[in-house]
């Protein structure tokens, strides 16, 4: 029974009082929550937007509302112009950071899918008990503290005696002098330090997409696969013509989510490579953080950086919602 039918019945019976009581309860309950959201979500987003048009240093006493204006003057779109074309150090590093962030994302996504999709198909094909066990273990890095993960990988990437160098030597290869600190080692235009961060990040993150793909595979009705078999399809045909098309929406959605999260990776960049060597692993979020909280010269500039990142992510989020809304019937 729908609650609105109760309302109607009561109104007909002349007891609208109950309905008014419920409405009053709903309003009084929601007002604090909405005020809270206003203060901690809406106000910050608006303030970040406004701040990006100011030259803002929190220690300077501004004159206007919230210290904006006066010593923290309105500079119109100067911060954005500086970021896009300026020659200041933060702007130059930021433009590098934008490139690096996209490079990182462009490497993470395919590597992630190449690992998770086949692994999910294999995982789906084995017995329930082992499937649960394997899935649980693959998911382990995902739930781990990123800081601990960074320490683990700094140990693996330690030059000379790290686990990776030892493994290279064990199979007769010569490991690079340094995995994380040599700016001159570049493969196909990608710095080695960036590759190292990508590998460590994918290792931490792949379990997430894996469990999503396994769940998606499980939700494909068996009858569809059976029908294909009855019609004479072999295993390959069944996989490519039945399973893959049905997974398309999930893969698309997961890809967008992976891109969104890759653009916001922080800990591993801040602690494993510290943006180096020579800014080769400097990312947008790291730039925003360093300019706002380490250098703290102009928070307006950092806010402008965060707005640029926000616009990129918002575009992707809208895409994600579009995909979610697409109806998909088996």
């Amino acid at each position, binding site marked *: *029974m*729908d609650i*609105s039918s*109760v309302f109607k019945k009561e109104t007909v019976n002349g007891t609208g009082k109950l309905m008014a009581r419920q409405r009053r*309860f*709903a*309003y009084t*309950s929601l007002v604090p*929550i*909405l005020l809270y959201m206003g203060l*901690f*979500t*809406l*106000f*910050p*987003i608006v*303030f970040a937007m406004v*701040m990006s048009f100011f030259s803002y240093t*929190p220690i300077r006493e501004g004159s206007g509302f919230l210290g904006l204006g006066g010593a923290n003057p309105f500079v119109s779109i100067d911060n954005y112009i500086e970021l896009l074309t300026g020659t200041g150090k933060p702007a130059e590093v930021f433009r590098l950071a934008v490139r690096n962030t996209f490079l990182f994302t462009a490497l993470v996504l395919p590597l992630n899918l190449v690992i998770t999709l*086949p*692994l999910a198909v294999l995982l789906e*094909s*084995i017995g329930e008990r082992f499937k649960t066990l394997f*899935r*649980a*273990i693959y*998911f*382990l890095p995902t*739930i*781990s*503290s*990123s*800081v*601990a993960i960074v*320490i*683990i990988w700094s*140990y*693996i990437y330690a030059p000379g005696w790290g*686990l990776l160098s030892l493994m290279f030597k064990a199979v007769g290869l010569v490991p690079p002098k340094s995995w994380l600190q040599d700016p001159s080692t570049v493969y196909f235009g990608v710095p080695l330090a960036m590759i190292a961060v990508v590998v460590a990040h994918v*290792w931490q993150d792949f379990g997430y997409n894996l*469990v*999503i793909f396994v769940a998606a595979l499980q939700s494909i009705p068996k009858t569809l*696969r059976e029908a294909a*078999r*009855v019609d004479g399809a072999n*295993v390959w045909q*069944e996989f490519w013509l039945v399973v893959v098309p049905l997974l398309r929406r999930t893969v698309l*959605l*997961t890809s967008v989510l992976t891109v969104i999260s890759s653009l916001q990776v922080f*800990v591993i960049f801040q*602690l494993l490579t510290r943006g180096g060597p020579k800014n080769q692993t400097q990312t947008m979020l790291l730039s925003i*953080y360093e300019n*706002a*909280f380490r250098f703290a010269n102009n*928070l307006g500039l950092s*806010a402008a950086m*965060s*707005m640029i990142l*926000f616009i990129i992510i*918002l575009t992707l989020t809208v895409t994600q919602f579009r995909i979610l809304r697409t109806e998909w019937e088996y």
Partner: protein
Amino acid sequence: MVTPPVKRPSAGFILGKSGVYAVLILGLVATLLPFFYIMVSSLKTDAELRKTPPDFFPQQPTFKHYTDILTDERIPLERNVLNSVFVSLARVVITLFTSSYAGYIFAKYHFKGKNLAFGVILIQIMIPFQVVMIPNYLLVVRLGLIDSLWALIIPSMVDAYGIFMMKQFIESMPTELMDAARMDGASEFGIYSRIILPQMGPPLASLGIFTFMATWNDYLWPLIVLTSPEKRTIPLLLVWFQTQHTSNQGLILAASILTLLPIFFVYIFLQRWIVDQATQSAFK
């Protein structure tokens, strides 16, 4: 149940059963080896840690680094652990309350402006943390909460995703029971606390575990708002270890393992819930 031979044709047909397991076990080794290597290394003596090339396994396993951390007077370890526990539990309790309460209102009440109000809350999901990070920092400064644990709690008391999840769940609960309670004179809040809440065990548990782990592992926000050593949470302590004890690898490794253990411990018992929760959150 008799399975017809054509049912569940699988990748196993292509690779062969043992091939499938070989690949899966390879993935397993790649996942566990880094953890395992750190764990065994944390049991090495200082001399063994300095040895090049190092042995994989410790020759004389020792818990020295662990006891060093646990007994070192200069590290406010107990405080830091308590900080993490306090913040995580506070956020779990508050998030569970606000999510289930707001979810209940949105699921079971009809009023003007409901869609708008829900939309306002959902904005939070669309806004990445780094956009509100700077203004929220300034806000926390104004509120006088810098270097206070409350700075980790107060800005995250309402979780839009949690509200969304609880609303979905409560919508599927029958309304008859609520009406019956109303006839018996129950207040609207009484309906929430006595009828709705007791039925919400599973989704509350999922959200609670999720919130706990996210808070326990949280790093960037605590890094921004906490400054003094005795206010640190575990990830901050771990970073401090990493920067201060660069010469003492053993301590850093043991500290990492100690950080990972509580979450692993929770995970062993609740892994099915955690994995399911992660799967669902992708399709919010």
